């Protein structure tokens, strides 16, 4: 399988038996149409946005390590055995595709790197199932999806501030109603 023909193709990785192709965000729709029509990936399994803020650094929500290494006096902190590979941009959008009905049932992950606030074109007209997945990516990670006809919050309330799955979103930061402090 050659992935070079995919429009906007940047690079291809193989790891853990899975193929990841990185494509340009600007030509994502063309890339997806090529994958669907030419290579048979007729099924969009999932869309996941990932936030890599603080990747390999200390002091980020969800991570207790320090760059100085392990502190033996504090049992729940530890450093890495080796620092992870740096990422090109803060956010990644991952599209998990499946060639359903083919003999080998191939899977591929399409990845697009994004900066904070950088928008990504909607793939809703390639796969209608992208509708709620893209709304979830907007709601949870704040990825602006361009061309989505109904980009509103899906899991959080309509007037919610912030995007909860971002790494800089605090845990337990929301105000508690009817508490004694009020």
């Amino acid at each position, binding site marked *: 399988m050659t992935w070079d023909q995919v429009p906007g193709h940047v690079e291809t990785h193989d*790891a853990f038996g899975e193929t990841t192709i990185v494509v340009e965000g600007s030509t994502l729709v063309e890339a997806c149409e090529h994958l669907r029509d030419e290579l048979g990936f007729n099924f969009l399994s999932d869309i996941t946005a990932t936030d890599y803020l603080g990747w390999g650094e200390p002091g980020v929500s969800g*991570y207790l*390590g320090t760059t100085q290494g392990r502190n033996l006096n504090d049992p*729940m902190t530890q450093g890495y055995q080796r620092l992870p590979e740096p990422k090109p941009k803060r956010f990644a959008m991952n599209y998990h595709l499946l060639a359903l009905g083919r003999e080998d049932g191939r*899977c591929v992950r399409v990845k697009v790197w994004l900066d904070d606030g950088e928008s990504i074109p909607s793939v809703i007209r390639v796969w*209608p*199932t992208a509708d*709620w997945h893209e709304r979830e990516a907007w709601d949870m990670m704040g990825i602006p999806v361009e061309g989505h006809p*109904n980009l509103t919050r899906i899991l959080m309330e309509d007037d919610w501030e912030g995007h909860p799955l971002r790494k800089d979103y605090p845990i337990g930061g929301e105000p508690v109603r009817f508490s004694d402090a009020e």
Partner: protein
Amino acid sequence: MTITPARAPIYEGSRIPSKVPTILEVPQDLRDSGDLLQVNFGPNHPSTHGVLRLMIDLHGETVVGLHAVIGYLHTGFEKNMEQKTWWKAITYPERIDYVAFQNNELVFVLAIEKLLGIQVPRKATWMRMLLCELNRIHSHLVWLGTSGLELGAISMFWYCFREREQILDLSELVAGTRMHTRYFQAGGLAEDIPRGFYAECRKFVERMPHAVDEYEQLVDRSLIWLERTQGVGLLSAEDALALGQSGPVLRGSGVDWDVRRDQPYLAYDEVDFHVPVYTHGDVYDRYRVHMDEMREATRIVAQCLDRLEQMEGEPWIADDRKVVLPPREELHTSMESLIHHFKIVTEGYRVPEGEVYVTIESPRGETGCYVVSDGGPKPWRVKFRAPSFVALQATATCLRNSLIADMIAIVGSLDTVMGEVDR
């Protein structure tokens, strides 16, 4: 006597609403006529299987507009899992889809194992398969019972929950808890399979096919059941694929796809089972898929039992002391075991850097788990591809121009668990 009302053919072309695939917009001429009634359904309605809210525009008794609102059960599982060490995070997936708990636990454990590259003993693999198939029957029974209840077949509920109780008893025998067992660990199983389990499970395997016969006798010749399910909630194969449907919904629409057979995990390539496919794409065919799958799952359980009985005395978990807790009795005599135990419990094990996406066939369809590790003891990102979340996207297509009374049957047939939709 066979009662077979004329089956409506699957429609021509596509019924997916064009602008937003999940929202059914009222046509302008109907909106101008003013002869519309907006009905709010849920989020606290007994037949929404949780907290689903549907806002429906009715023209007479026909559904002409639909807007689904979800998120009432959002609990932030994915965010929480980022705060836990890998081995503590295993408890969360079970609670995401609380009906198919064993399958959800499996998908996360398989993702960890894929990153770790750890070899699982064959006894654990077969026991996992056995429990997942029992869990599939459990999930289908809950679906059949509640869906029957909603359509007026109240006795279905009691019969289904009678067999469900047996499965939960088996679960309790193995893991000590009825649901949310946390029995699967990275590397294998938490405990050895208890003595007496095989015999109890055999009793269930012998009982279950007769139970399915009983359910079919109750509803399959009931004219009310047939008329309320046949030709209702149509979804064509092309639309089902475009909407990302999976599991019984996809197979009820005529697409022959099952992750267990087509991308085998565990040891599904070594067991003999049949994948039921029906082509009418209505509520009745989804019901048929569920019934056939219960029989097939029982067959798989029987094959697992045959294999497991030959594995007496084999290890049930990998012997990798960096990942797997040492046996309890060693802690008194071995300093290394004590250190390993302390390290795993306090810090957790480290999982190599990387990202994987693992899919399994859960009772509701393709459950996917995407995990990212930075090489540390906690997941960097966990995302579940919830089949219920995707199934609900088909409500607008399935409900198009159907009657309001059929809505209950249609939403029920998509077999959603709101805990999984909202995560």
